[in-house]
């Protein structure tokens, strides 16, 4: 069908015939291949039959998709326009590339029709799809390796990844229509290069050892987003053309994460790199290390966060934060830090290890929460505050100096220690310092101490005593005081401790005054 369309288009371009006449002639030529009984169907015919089969599958269920002007029709036309480039030299010998071409065209058409069918609201232009096909399939077919074992791998990887990749590419084209109009550098070329680079990397590492299909497709989709939003990043440099840049991007990310502690050495690492790529898309390159090519800095950036988590991930004595977080939450935890770093590039610029110090500080505190007094969501909130305050107040709560976690981490650990002791008696004992109360106490401690770390460090023991005193008081008067009162008192009294050290004894009268209950209550 597409061959017929191609012949028609070619003829029309050369003014040899109208498109309609071209279709008739093309059809006749195609049928002639079989009618003469000369032998097997030619490469073009085989591809046409393959495409026709796939198109027919969809016609029955989704007639509008392949109707005139439908997105499916545009996709078929896009494939048709590039068909001659996809018929390799070995076509008549039924060689490996020829068969691979049929296979790849089939995979792309099937995936494309399904994607377009699932997204009826999309409006895609034929030219975009043509360019997408042109820059994607012919290079993939041409890249079929010589060695049998590598050919087998190339096929396996393409079978697994090309369909999802085609869907992702079409989604990117549909979601960023303006990106593909009048750009100085054609993003389609970057998309083609990225597709090939992803498959090459998957061939190199396999689909089981490091990233699976899910990891590769997530990475690929994120790189497409960068290409659509910032195509200039893929222009290349002298000695590093677009294609090499794409190969380096996947290779460097995989290489950087390969030595990471589990689970970041697998798909979770790929998803972390996705977070970095998303940040590149949204914020540009400001937050990446400028001394290295950006495609190398992506993996290095992800690694900084992973390094911050290393101790908490690997130290068996702490129980590890892996036991607290699901993989999704662990990723979300890491994303919080990355998002802040993207907004505050100086945190990581020039080898600055601030981000790593903050991640490490929070992770160290988390690993002390052996009784799970806080939920994973509570920890995510605390992490967000820690990195926000850390970014706004450099070298205060979480300094980069070796040998110290910083007062931020120490305050969190102290509060956890008080809470753990208080909750040792179980719920019947009436303690309140856990869950939301503990979370808010930690947030208060971080926010208050960020502006006066000298006093926080000096009066660290007094701050711990304050939490202990309040906990004992509230626990001792369960019918009059609870979580809300604990927090009001803590908020009120932290500044006092930071100004003057230990609170000493707190009378009920003082407490009620602070709570606004009147001294006699």
């Amino acid at each position, binding site marked *: 069908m597409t061959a017929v369309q191609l012949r028609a288009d070619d003829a029309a371009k050369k003014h040899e015939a109208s498109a309609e006449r071209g279709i008739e002639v093309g*059809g006749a030529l195609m049928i002639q291949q*079989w009618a003469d009984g000369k*032998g*097997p169907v030619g490469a073009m015919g085989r591809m046409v039959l393959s495409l*026709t089969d796939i198109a027919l599958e969809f016609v029955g269920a989704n007639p509008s998709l*392949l109707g005139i002007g*439908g997105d499916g*029709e545009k996709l078929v036309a896009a494939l048709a326009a590039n068909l001659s480039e996809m018929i390799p030299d070995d076509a008549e010998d039924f060689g*490996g590339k020829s068969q691979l071409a049929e296979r790849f065209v089939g995979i792309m058409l099937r995936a494309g029709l399904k994607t377009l069918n699932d997204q009826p609201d999309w409006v895609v232009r034929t030219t975009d799809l043509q360019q997408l096909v042109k820059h994607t399939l012919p290079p993939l077919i041409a890249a079929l390796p010589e060695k049998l074992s590598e050919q*087998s791998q190339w096929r396996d990887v393409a079978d697994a990844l090309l369909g999802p990749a085609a869907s992702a590419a079409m989604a990117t084209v549909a979601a960023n229509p303006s990106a593909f109009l009048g750009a100085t550098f054609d993003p389609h070329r970057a998309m083609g290069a990225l597709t090939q680079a992803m498959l090459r990397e998957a061939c190199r590492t396999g689909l089981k050892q490091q990233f699976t299909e899910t990891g590769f497709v997530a990475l690929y989709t994120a790189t497409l987003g960068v290409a659509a939003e910032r195509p200039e990043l893929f222009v290349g440099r002298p000695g590093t053309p677009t294609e090499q840049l794409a190969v380096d991007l996947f290779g460097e990310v995989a290489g950087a994460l390969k030595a990471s502690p589990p689970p970041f050495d697998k798909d979770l690492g790929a998803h972390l790199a996705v977070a970095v790529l998303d940040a590149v898309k949204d914020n540009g390159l400001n937050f990446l290390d400028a001394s290295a090519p950006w495609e190398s800095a992506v993996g290095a950036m992800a690694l900084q966060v992973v390094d911050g988590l290393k101790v908490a991930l690997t130290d068996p004595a702490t129980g590890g934060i892996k036991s607290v977080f699901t993989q999704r939450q662990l990723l979300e935890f890491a994303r919080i830090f990355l998002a802040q770093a993207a907004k505050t590039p100086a945190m990581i610029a020039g080898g600055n290890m601030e981000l790593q110090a903050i991640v490490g500080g929070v992770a160290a505190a988390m690993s002390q929460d052996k009784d799970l007094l806080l939920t994973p969501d509570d920890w995510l909130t605390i992490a967000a505050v820690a990195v926000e305050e850390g970014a706004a107040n450099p070298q205060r709560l979480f300094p980069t100096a070796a040998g110290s976690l910083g007062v931020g981490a120490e305050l969190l650990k102290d509060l956890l220690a008080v809470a753990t002791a208080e909750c040792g008696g179980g719920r019947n004992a009436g303690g309140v310092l856990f869950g939301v109360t503990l979370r808010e106490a930690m947030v208060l401690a971080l926010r208050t101490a960020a502006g006066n770390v000298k006093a926080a460090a000096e009066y660290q023991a007094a701050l711990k005593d304050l939490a202990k005193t309040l906990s004992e008081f509230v626990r001792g008067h369960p019918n009059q005081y609870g979580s809300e009162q604990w927090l009001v008192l803590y908020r009120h009294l932290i500044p006092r401790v930071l100004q003057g050290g230990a609170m000493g004894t707190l009378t009920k009268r003082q407490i009620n005054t602070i709570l606004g209950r009147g001294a006699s209550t």
Partner: protein
Amino acid sequence: MSRRLIAFVLTTSLLAGCRPVTTVGKLDARLTSAPNAQDLAALAQEARNAAQQATDPKDRVAYYRIAAVAAWHAGAPGKAAVLPISAAGAAACDALPAKDMTAPRDCSLIRLAAPLAVQDDLARDLITLQHQLPGTPGAKLPAADFARLQKLFTQFETQFDQVAAIRAGLAHLDVRPELTVGTDRRWLIIYCNAVKAWSLSGDVEDVPMAEFSDMAQRKKTMSERLEAHGVTNDCRTITATQTAGTDL
């Protein structure tokens, strides 16, 4: 896009189909008469052409089986054709009314041809590397060879997985026991070659222990899978690195 044109193309393609000039029996006889590699490669092409022209789906699959096995057995002269033929044959099997159950032996051999041909190719590479190891005690391969051996191991593992999937399918197909036994034998050969690749990777300079241990774990997993299917995972019965043989 005109549905009429799609229907036209399909109908005429069916009407215009030509019967192959040869028969399955004749080609099968040539396959079993142990011709040389060049003859096998030519036979593969001939059978592939016959498959493309065959109108009967079962005949088509039978021709593809001959083509796939001939291309595999041909070794180097046939290796460019073996994957495309196996893939086309597998598609022909998928198009049968009851898929592989319609032609269980033919379809199993079509599917086996690809991983076994790749295994043979890998085994040749492994032998080359083995010969590069100096015979003197304590001799090592250059550190750069570790990556090559690691890749070989991974590729053997991939073929192992593919044969495992086909082997699992045999249990649901009406095939003669010889086919299952022969498949198990080749499954074991792939495993043993993976073991040899792993073992040789320990004979390179500055072995990266983490990666060496990772391969050891994967080797163990393969071994357990063989055991689970009642295949003795004893590589002592595999006297040397060998290709998968042609007696299926």
